[in-house]
């Protein structure tokens, strides 16, 4: 029994085949370009071609072998690291706007998803992208919280670091709890993808759950991280806004990929009604399915 107690997403070195490597690059490329290019015609073009390539390759085929699926874990690592750094989005905004900082009124794309970042036609590609969004969102929430934790230790008011005030401690503790729940859920979906492939019957349910839990967690992190920062967090100068704007955009896109937050909730609710049980639905969605080999 002990043998089965290995973490599913182990960091062990993995063997990859060509398909897996291609997929890793593709996924990384898509997210990189989506995040860095200024919002112009070239960017749109680039996105389309990446999406077409994803759709053409077909995730089921690309992920047909266990080795290839393991490559998803690598892709996830790259996606997370990029989302955490968040530097590109800031550069992009600066490049796109020159001297005049973009305002939300003048340029909705500062935080909204562009239309062409909607759902790819290939259903499995949409699943993979939704999972990628979840990984990005968790990484960005973590980055926002890390900035906040650093800030409250450094910043003093009333002669004490902000971190010494219990109200501050609790508000960031709650945010960290929401992040931990989000990360657990995203990792569960990633483990499901690695094991069962994009066509897994339970993966859509796990992504619906993630859309809901992450969607709420973003509100909590967005609220707490800005509150503890005071006015400095509300500037273009201080880096918190990069993560915040990313979170808002990525949440919009995640929900769009699942056809709306309420649809995610209703689908899961319908599953429970059909199974005649809340708890039995939870255990069924979390029960590992057959390996897709």
């Amino acid at each position: 029994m002990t043998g089965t107690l290995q973490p599913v997403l182990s960091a062990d070195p993995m063997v990859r085949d060509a398909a897996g490597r291609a997929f890793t690059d593709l996924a990384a490329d898509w997210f990189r370009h989506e995040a860095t290019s200024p919002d112009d015609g070239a960017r749109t073009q680039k996105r389309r071609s990446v999406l077409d390539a994803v759709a053409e390759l077909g995730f089921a085929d690309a992920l047909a072998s266990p080795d290839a699926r393991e490559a998803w874990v690598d892709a996830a690592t790259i996606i997370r690291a990029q989302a955490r750094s968040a530097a590109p989005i800031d550069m992009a905004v600066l490049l796109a706007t020159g001297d005049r900082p973009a305002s939300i009124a003048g340029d909705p794309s500062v935080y909204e998803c562009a239309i062409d970042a909607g759902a790819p036609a290939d259903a499995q590609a949409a699943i993979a992208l939704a999972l990628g969004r979840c990984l990005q969102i968790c990484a960005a929430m973590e980055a926002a919280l890390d900035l906040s934790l650093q800030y409250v230790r450094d910043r003093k008011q009333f002669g004490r670091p902000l971190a010494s005030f219990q109200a501050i401690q609790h508000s960031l503790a709650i945010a960290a709890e929401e992040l931990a729940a989000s990360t657990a859920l995203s990792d569960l979906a990633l483990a499901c993808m690695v094991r069962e492939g994009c066509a897994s019957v339970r993966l859509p349910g796990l992504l619906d759950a993630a859309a809901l839990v992450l969607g709420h967690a973003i509100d909590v992190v967005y609220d707490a991280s800005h509150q503890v920062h005071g006015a400095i967090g509300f500037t273009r100068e201080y880096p918190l806004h990069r993560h915040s704007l990313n979170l808002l955009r990525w949440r919009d896109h995640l929900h769009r990929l699942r056809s709306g937050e309420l649809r995610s909730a209703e689908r899961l609710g319908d599953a429970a009604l059909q199974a005649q049980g809340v708890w039995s639905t939870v255990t069924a969605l979390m029960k590992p399915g057959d390996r897709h080999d």
Partner: protein
Amino acid sequence: MNLHFPIFELPAGAEALRGEVREFIAAERRAGLWQRGGDFATHYDPAFSRRLGARGWLGMTWPRPYGGQERSTLERLVLTEELIAANAPIAAHWIADRQSGPLLLRYGSEAQRREFLPRIARGEIFFSIGMSEPDSGSDLASVRTRAVKVDGGWRIDGRKLWTSFAHLNHYAIVLARTGHAGESRHEGLSQFIVDLKAGDLEVRPIVNMAGQREFNEVVFSDSFVPDERLVGEPGNGWRQVTSELAYERSGPERYLSFIRLAEAALQCAGARPSPRLREALGRTVAKLIALRSMSIAVAALLHKGAMPNLEASLIKDLGTAFEREQVGVYRALRTELAVPSAEYLSALAETTIYAPSWTLRGGTREILRGIVARGLGMR
């Protein structure tokens, strides 16, 4: 951020056990042996506990020489989550199986293990927790109950408070001061196995808000405890107590206290379920999946011998806050149900009244958030 909940899949054997437990519960319900209701801390039925013992479902992870079955922590998790999700009457054995037994396994003497563990595993003896006192709640290190060394044992003086089921259980593990507190205040504490049926202590009832008698005041006056009932080393009590916390805080009982209400609402959905009910049920499923995967992670870490106290505290705060919020959600949905059943109304009344205790017992929300804050480097 140094929080990590590694993802574990339940082994196939554990999933097989789930089917077995669900059949057992269904058979018990068909036979009318108990009604759905209450939770791990309120629904007390020694006969049920003995039936679990007969199946090898108490102390199931312990070594065979002590009456255990040497099954995995994850199998125990499957058993307990199914029992809790069904509101089975587990309160009698709950503390002994979850916490007192593992404590004795870890710190008890060989003689203590042989004396107590097999009887716990058969469902014959039940344990209470004797930590809180009138002046020591969250600040547990301030306990004043004293144990003084005498010939052949210890003499205990003091009062324990909120001792759940001390009037029905056989033993309590009592935390008492045996020496100087030291600068950390964590020194000089010891744990004793106290026989609640012994004549020289008094168990006084306290009726709770719901009108039930669950907790008690336990008064010691020069009460004698023999040497062989000291648990572990004298003065090591604080370390021993904190080792119980990860078991106490991360299990399914910390996010399923409301489940009866959600299941009852689902049963009242009618032929054309309201979109609001469908949405609420979906949100419940989503958060439960997240909490359960964290809880499984902690169970697996415990199985590997780690002490994930921070992670366990985090789960308890998040889980109990969720439970309390859910009561409000399903109360508001009352008018969306086809016909609110008697079970829904009873579940609503029960969860509403008991909800305040969820974020108190086993460490208050404020204390848990403080532990998380420390883990995040803010204290």
